[in-house]
């Protein structure tokens, strides 16, 4: 087998445009490739990739490998793994990076097992060891209570997924040039054993949680649907969005897609306000990028106060109305 060379990122495309995770992948991928003195490639799969291929060059890729085929319209484990297996065997990359997204979480391990190599999921930091030239992978474990540093020494490619919003994208540079190479999918449709029969989009009212500058989160302590309407009032007042920890989602008080945390949304607002939530590690993992953390909780020992910058200890039912009232006064005055 030829020597494995180059850094390859798996870029995600929605309606002909690169997703933000793809830009983050290009950013870290560029850095690793430069440290190794190697090329950065981006592989894009889908149906109707359009200008995304050129865009990937402007954001850091030297080469873009586009696999554009109607059979790849929907993400399906079988089809995407088969195509990525083929691409990896053809290109023999040293490193392959994916996003810790719905696609990456499924594709990365399946592909790694198929290629007989290791993968580290949900990395928050990646670097090249100057001596060994191996990719050093840093990943939170135990819900963020600990951090592990790993390497994949024996097998290639070294595969990792990166946490959403953990890496910085590069600024778009319109002077960058690169090459777009088309790779045929050559898939036997009979080899795809799953079928996507429907897609249901949850309606987002107001600002998207991931994009919000202010995020107001509620936990089990909110007690029910009614409590969340107060959180919505506050979020609206501050121009933010409402999120929740796992219990309110599981109990159906709020929609499942509002879950913030390790397996839900990762948010990076300027201001995060956590109300009636203990601050489980799994939730903290989703808010660690918040610039300012504010907490309201009855229990002064609650873990949320260990990460909060400002806190109020008390029953939210009594604290919140006066907080909202004062915010209104200050904002109008």
């Amino acid at each position, binding site marked *: 087998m030829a020597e494995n060379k180059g850094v390859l990122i798996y870029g995600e495309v929605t309606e002909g445009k690169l997703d933000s995770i793809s830009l983050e992948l290009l950013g870290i991928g560029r850095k690793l490739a430069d440290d190794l003195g190697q090329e950065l490639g981006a592989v894009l799969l889908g149906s109707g990739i359009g200008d995304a291929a050129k865009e990937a060059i402007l954001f850091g890729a030297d080469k873009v490998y586009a696999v554009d085929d109607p059979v790849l319209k929907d993400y399906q484990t079988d089809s995407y793994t088969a195509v990525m297996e083929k691409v990896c065997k053809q290109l023999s990359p040293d490193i392959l990076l994916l996003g810790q997204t719905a696609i990456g979480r499924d594709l990365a391990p399946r592909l790694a097992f198929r290629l007989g190599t290791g993968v580290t999921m949900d990395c928050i930091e990646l670097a090249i060891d100057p001596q060994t030239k191996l990719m050093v992978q840093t990943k939170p474990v135990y819900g963020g209570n*600990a951090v592990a*540093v790993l390497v994949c020494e024996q097998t290639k490619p070294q595969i990792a997924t990166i946490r959403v919003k953990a890496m910085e994208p590069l600024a778009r540079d319109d002077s960058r040039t690169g090459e777009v190479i088309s790779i045929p999918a050559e898939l036997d449709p009979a080899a795809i054993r799953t079928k996507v029969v429907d897609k249901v989009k949850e309606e987002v009212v107001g600002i998207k949680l991931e994009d919000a500058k202010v995020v107001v989160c509620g936990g089990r302590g909110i007690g029910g649907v009614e409590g969340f309407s107060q959180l919505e009032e506050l979020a609206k007042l501050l121009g933010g969005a409402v999120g929740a920890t796992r219990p309110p989602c599981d109990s159906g008080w709020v929609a499942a897609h509002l879950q913030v945390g390790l397996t839900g949304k990762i948010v990076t607002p300027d201001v995060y306000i956590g109300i009636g939530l203990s601050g489980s590690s799994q939730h903290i993992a989703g808010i660690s990028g918040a610039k300012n953390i504010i907490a309201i909780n009855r229990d002064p020992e609650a873990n949320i106060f260990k990460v909060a910058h400002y806190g109020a200890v008390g029953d939210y039912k009594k604290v919140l109305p*006066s907080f909202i009232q004062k915010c209104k006064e200050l904002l109008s005055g």
Partner: protein
Amino acid sequence: MNIIVCVKQVLDPELPPSAFKIDPEAKKAIPPRDRAPVISPFDENAVEAALRIKDVHGGQITTLCLGQDLDMAVVKKPLSMGADELVLLQDNAFEGGDSFATAYALATAIKKIGEFDLIFCGRQAADWDAGQVGSGIAELLGIPSVSPAQKIEIKDGKVVVERVVADGYEVVEVSPPALITVSNELGEPRYPTMKGIMAAKKKTVTVWTAQDLGLDQSMIGASAAKSKMLKLFVPVREAKCEFVAGETAEEFGANLALKLREAKLL
């Protein structure tokens, strides 16, 4: 439907972070003495998903668990919830295995169990949060997988899965045999009944070692691992919380708003 559910015993993830300790030399978490381990929460969701199918269609549920220092009262919980059999893969030789080594051992055990229609796993374990073992088992067995599910139903012999994606869900159809990983959106797992607990206590558990599975040293534990851990540490959190002053809850609320204005956050 015959369903195999893979479960893992983990440190209780609800353990307050202040009580979480690691041994940096051994690169392992230290189990607290006063707190029993639990079945990883997403794995309990997987057990619940299997039970819901059994409720409607009948069949047999076998739970499969790999680990060391297994607490019988903990790993028998799926039985007390309503699962039929429990197979433990317990052998010190499994020590130090990563997702790759674990999936290999579990896939080998599944082949030994023999007949199954579906395999369920939790979407990821609450300790390493890797979420690789399910995909790995499916790949090693050469069967399709759907991940992660919030609902699983059987219709006309097909498995209809609601797969969670960022902005909603997709409905995916697959024919058995297949592997499905389960997420918390499925809903709360049921509590064991007293009758279930009594029955689980009496239940004989199958225990297999690496040798029983015909696995040699090179295929299991640390020697089969693809990834090597260099370091494990507890991150330092530097935030110091400033608590607002006040006599009443109402004052706390108003003072918090004033504090935020002072900090130019409002």
